[in-house]
């Protein structure tokens, strides 16, 4: 294989094998920017799978990144369960009032059937069309909320923490139902053409759970769930910290770890080296007011810390670029990774000396 002729998929596969590809792969995890490209509202954009297909293809043509991100919005799963989704003109659709209003509601909870839910069928449809259009040129990333993290939207964060501490039997019932749904939802996306599944699991992060609690709950849940997903997964902490549990995350069988800007990506890369690939960790919220120069510097900094030896994909730290991040910043990030991400990273020694 001649390095500079790699497709995005080959580039990503090389880095996941902990080898240096032709350059550092770049995942622009933009969801709402597709609506901007098509000149329509966020609500209209997500109403048809064809819009998401066109938006994702336009974004990839414009920013030359290495994946298709077939993620609509986090509460699409809540919509599938009959919950409320609230649209906004300038942000991701948000979950409405929790549909589990008391702990007892868990006893009568039933997971939706994937084939019968219009919002999930839209996602599957866009996955199929995207696969037809791009084939094996780039990985198509599907998304699930982990069974352990979904309850934040199902019942509200405060009540969920109380459930964990005070009603372990009902917690187990809820998790069992969620696990089955998560596995079916992930596998349906893989069957439709997704290359890999992003397993969002912020509740497992040490920002939210203690390591002790994680080992009793999120860890076991992820191990069981990921083990039954019929394809590779990337576990994403959605801005949460994870350094103290990296070894455990590796044991869940996941291939990639989406990490926070609040942790040092060099330290993370060292712990993960040759075991699991690191995805991250540009600060998406701060990115909103970056200049193109600042964007280039942040990309260089991340690559200098984690790029060597492969096993690193440049991305934001949350798994969703805020709608307010301007196009020129995204373009500057793209140009910087194309310029400074070329392997071998000859510029590193000089750069490190000036730091």
């Amino acid at each position: 294989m001649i390095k500079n002729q790699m497709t995005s998929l080959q580039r990503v596969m090389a880095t996941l094998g902990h080898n240096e590809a032709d350059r550092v792969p770049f995942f622009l995890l933009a969801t709402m920017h597709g609506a901007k490209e098509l000149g329509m509202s966020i609500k209209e954009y997500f109403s048809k799978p064809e819009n998401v297909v066109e938006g994702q293809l336009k974004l990839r043509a414009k920013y030359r990144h290495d994946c298709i991100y077939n993620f609509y919005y986090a509460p699409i799963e809540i919509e599938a369960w009959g919950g409320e989704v609230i649209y906004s003109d300038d942000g991701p659709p948000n979950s409405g009032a929790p549909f589990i209003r008391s702990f007892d509601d868990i006893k009568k909870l039933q997971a939706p059937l994937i084939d019968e839910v219009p919002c999930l069928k839209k996602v599957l449809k866009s996955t199929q069309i995207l696969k037809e259009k791009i084939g094996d040129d780039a990985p198509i990333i599907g998304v699930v909320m982990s069974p352990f993290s979904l309850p934040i939207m199902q019942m509200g964060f405060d009540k969920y923490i109380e459930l964990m501490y005070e009603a372990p039997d009902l917690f187990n019932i809820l998790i069992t139902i969620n696990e089955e749904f998560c596995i079916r939802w992930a596998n349906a996306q893989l069957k439709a053409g997704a290359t890999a599944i992003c397993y969002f699991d912020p509740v497992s992060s040490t920002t939210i759970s203690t390591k002790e609690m994680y080992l009793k709950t999120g860890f076991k849940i992820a191990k069981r769930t990921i083990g039954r997903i019929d394809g590779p997964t990337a576990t994403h902490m959605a801005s949460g910290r994870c350094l103290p549990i990296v070894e455990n995350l590796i044991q869940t069988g996941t291939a990639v770890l989406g990490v926070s800007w609040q942790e040092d990506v060099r330290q993370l890369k060292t712990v993960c080296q040759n075991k699991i690939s690191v995805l991250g960790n540009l600060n998406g919220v701060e990115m909103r007011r970056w200049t193109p120069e600042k964007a280039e510097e942040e990309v260089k900094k991340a690559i200098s810390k984690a790029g060597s030896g492969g096993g690193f994909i440049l991305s934001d730290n949350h798994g969703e670029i805020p709608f307010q991040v301007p196009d020129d910043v995204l373009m500057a990030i793209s140009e910087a990774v194309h310029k400074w991400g070329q392997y071998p990273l000859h510029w590193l020694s000089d750069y490190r000396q000036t730091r």
Partner: protein
Amino acid sequence: MMNVVNDFMQALLNVDRLLAKKIIDDHVSIMHPIQLIEDIVVVALERIGTGWQDGTYALSQVYMSGRICEEVVDTILPPSDPDRKDQPKMAICVLSDHHKLGKTIVYSLLRASGFELLDFDIVEVNDMVARVKEQKIKILLISVLMLPSALKIKKVKKIFKDEGLDTKIIVGGAPFRFDDQLWQEVGADAMCETASEAVSVVHNLMECVS
């Protein structure tokens, strides 16, 4: 006193309600309630908050600690007790989104520290402004999780200014931790990195509004 604080903090971190209550009960006869709250409860909560900020403790522990302290403090200092702080009228709310955890934690911590405040729950901008005017709120704490909600605070600030309201705005939530200039951009008077910081931030702002 440090041993008592350590024991109390450990009880909170272990979500051991009974032990936490026993420690407070053991001291209620020898300390004035306000002194007990300030010397034991507030100190323990501040240390847990700082521990969350540096990654030592988890948000679940911060939340459960706040809830336990709120319950304990209500038993030794009921809401109507004249010993509760002489303070400007305060309220707390979540702006726009349905993620209430941060608001609930700050509400618990402030009440556990002897403050009284109204809970507006989830509100949109216009409803919030109307309630601030109606209740003559002097300090408003706004919690957000989503960036678009944080940016709406600009509109709140503008309405306050246009209508001549001198209500101080304290903000908190993930977007403000991820961008340390955002609170100034939206026109807030102060920002809390952690829920426990709210106690000292409110103390500081009280001097400006009294």
